[in-house]
């Protein structure tokens, strides 16, 4: 096993899934000849041809709607939306069609579709190449929402997403595409959907985070020698309720960290779950560290993404409470 980054891991996983299963079709803008603007689908066109690696016209609605039709009829499409910011033209298809087709047909049709899309800040992309829109999907029953935080999870979760018989929104933290390397097994393997990862055991404070913020949280905790329980949710819908409640009860001090805006960010749901189920264990307010409730300003990207400093000040706030 060699060390590879997340782009390499995803690319290899797609390649293996396509080699193994003829029903897998990759489609999206610039996924073919160009290999994807982040190169996640590089070389796939040459290997699998135009019928299976489809460069689509500029229509997110078309990509997701067509992929859903394929999925209803025997294929296993893996669609790419070039930036998560551009998924909204397909939002009606997501909310009103793909998340409800199994339900409304009484379970007689299903949509085994994976929608991969890079999200979050970190490429100096201003308002429209930086959004973290996970809340819009987490509020939508029928969807499964996943976000890996490292090259290993990226593979295991993508394989699980592919195996799932329901639509999956697979959010790739673009800031971590090339910044983190890890050993990733050559073969295909799965990581259970709905199960969080415990990244660090600790007793004094619980930090619940996911995706793009994981390395920042880990750096903060390690540099400052914090005795923290750190949880990487990995699946945002359905969230790992057991892991959340267990850590809250253990430390009594909880911080949530994500890049999406605070108001109705995923942190809100975590707080609410804890305030419903573990109130008596709480020793301090549940503090949310999040992106601000503003569009993602081009010039001040770094200020909008939660920094180690902001995380540390939240830790101090709950520890000193």
């Amino acid at each position, binding site marked *: 096993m060699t060390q590879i980054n997340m782009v390499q891991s995803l690319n290899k996983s797609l390649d293996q899934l396509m080699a193994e299963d003829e029903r897998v*079709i990759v489609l999206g803008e610039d996924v073919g000849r160009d290999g994807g603007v982040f190169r996640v689908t590089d070389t796939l066109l040459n290997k699998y041809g135009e*019928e299976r690696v*489809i460069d*689509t*016209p500029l*229509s997110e*609605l*078309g990509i*997701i*709607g*067509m*992929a*859903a*039709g*394929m*999925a*209803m*009829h*025997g*294929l296993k*499409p893996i669609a790419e939306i070039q930036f998560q910011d551009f998924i909204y*033209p397909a939002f*009606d*298809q997501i909310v*009103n*069609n793909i998340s*409800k*087709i*199994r*339900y*409304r*047909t*009484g*379970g*007689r*049709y*299903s949509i085994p579709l994976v929608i991969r899309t890079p999200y979050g800040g970190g490429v100096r992309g201003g308002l429209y190449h930086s959004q973290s829109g996970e809340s819009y999907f987490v509020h939508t*029953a*029928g969807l*499964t929402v996943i976000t890996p935080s490292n090259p290993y999870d990226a593979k295991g979760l993508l394989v699980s997403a592919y195996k*799932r*018989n*329901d639509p999956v929104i697979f959010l790739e933290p673009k800031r971590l595409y090339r910044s983190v390397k890890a050993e990733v097994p050559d073969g295909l393997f799965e990581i259970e959907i*709905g199960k969080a990862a415990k990244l660090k055991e600790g007793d004094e404070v619980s930090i619940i985070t996911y995706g793009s913020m994981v390395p920042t949280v880990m750096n903060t905790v390690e540099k400052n020698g914090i005795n923290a329980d750190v949880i990487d949710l990995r699946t945002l*819908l*359905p969230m790992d*309720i057991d892991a959340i409640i267990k850590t809250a009860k253990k430390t009594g001090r909880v911080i949530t960290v994500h890049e999406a805006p605070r108001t109705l960010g995923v942190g809100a749901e975590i707080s609410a779950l804890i305030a419903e189920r573990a109130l008596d264990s709480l020793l301090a307010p549940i503090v949310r560290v999040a992106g601000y409730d503003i569009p993602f300003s081009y010039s001040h990207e770094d200020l909008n993404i939660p920094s180690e400093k902001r995380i540390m000040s939240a830790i101090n706030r709950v520890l000193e409470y």
Partner: protein
Amino acid sequence: MDYAEALNMGIVGNLSNEQTISAYKTAVLARTLDIKIINAQRQGIIGFHVPNQGQEMIQIAIGMLSEKDDFIFNYYRDLALLLQRGVPLSLIFDQMLSNSNDLQKGRQMPDHFSFKEFNFTTVQSPVGAHLPLAVGAAYSIKYTKKKGIVIATFGDGATSTSDFHAALNLASVYNLSVLFVCENNGWAISLPSSKQTKAEIYKKGAAYNIPGKRVDGNDLISSLLGLQEALNYVRDGKGPYLVEATTYRIGPHSTSDDPKKYRSDEITDGSENDPIRRLENLMLKMGVVDPSFIQSVKAQAKEEIDKTMDERMTIPPVDPSTMFDDVYESPSWIQEEERREMNDSD
């Protein structure tokens, strides 16, 4: 199309008497069913209905020319099409009544059918949203080299949706076998087609290099003729085709609608320009049937429908606890917890 002209062209000759009679029977069945449902809605037995009246002929023509392997992505106003492709009345009633036999477990409003066995995929309320799915299905057929094509129906209103635009472009770019049939019934609720768009609908294919054709959707023969030409094109693998069938919504938009607010009815049930009456007149004129036959078809339809509805009404309603199933292949802890919560609060 003028019937005499059709006769002269020898077109009607291509259609056997049996076929014509069978089409007529389906039309009468659909019309009778529609009236029955509207009455049931008024009595509070059925919750809602989008009447099918006036649009039977084009739908029956689609049904006649479609093949078993074709996938149909229809819209909510296609009762006659369902009947023509053989969906049993019982299953239709089960859905309209949301009883425990309903294949969809009572989850959708009446008229929002899904009959997988008949390759009727699934109807949603958001107008046009099935069209990109239809294109994906056609991609799948092509890729897996299966038999059949895709036929998608929709209203004139749907042509303004984003889904229409995306679907036609993709079908064209990948040269997929999709027959798009717009049932232009002149209205989108209260909006006349002339305000929906300033273009003739069959010409909208030009934006995607898709050929288009208009047929008189109130006339069985014109519909069959036009569809046949389009279907030959599509089945030959030449790509998608757009048919505009001009037709007329005889009733209100739905049982919640009051069309008096915005229009005076141009065609009414049973009048000389009612498409069913037109077919009746043609058959009588050609001596295919006699008036007593017509009467017996109508009586039989009524009897069959009354009987079936009585029977289906005895089926109990759906069990509420199923309401948490099928959100996912297996429920997550959230649905399980909520199911328990609901049961506890009973």
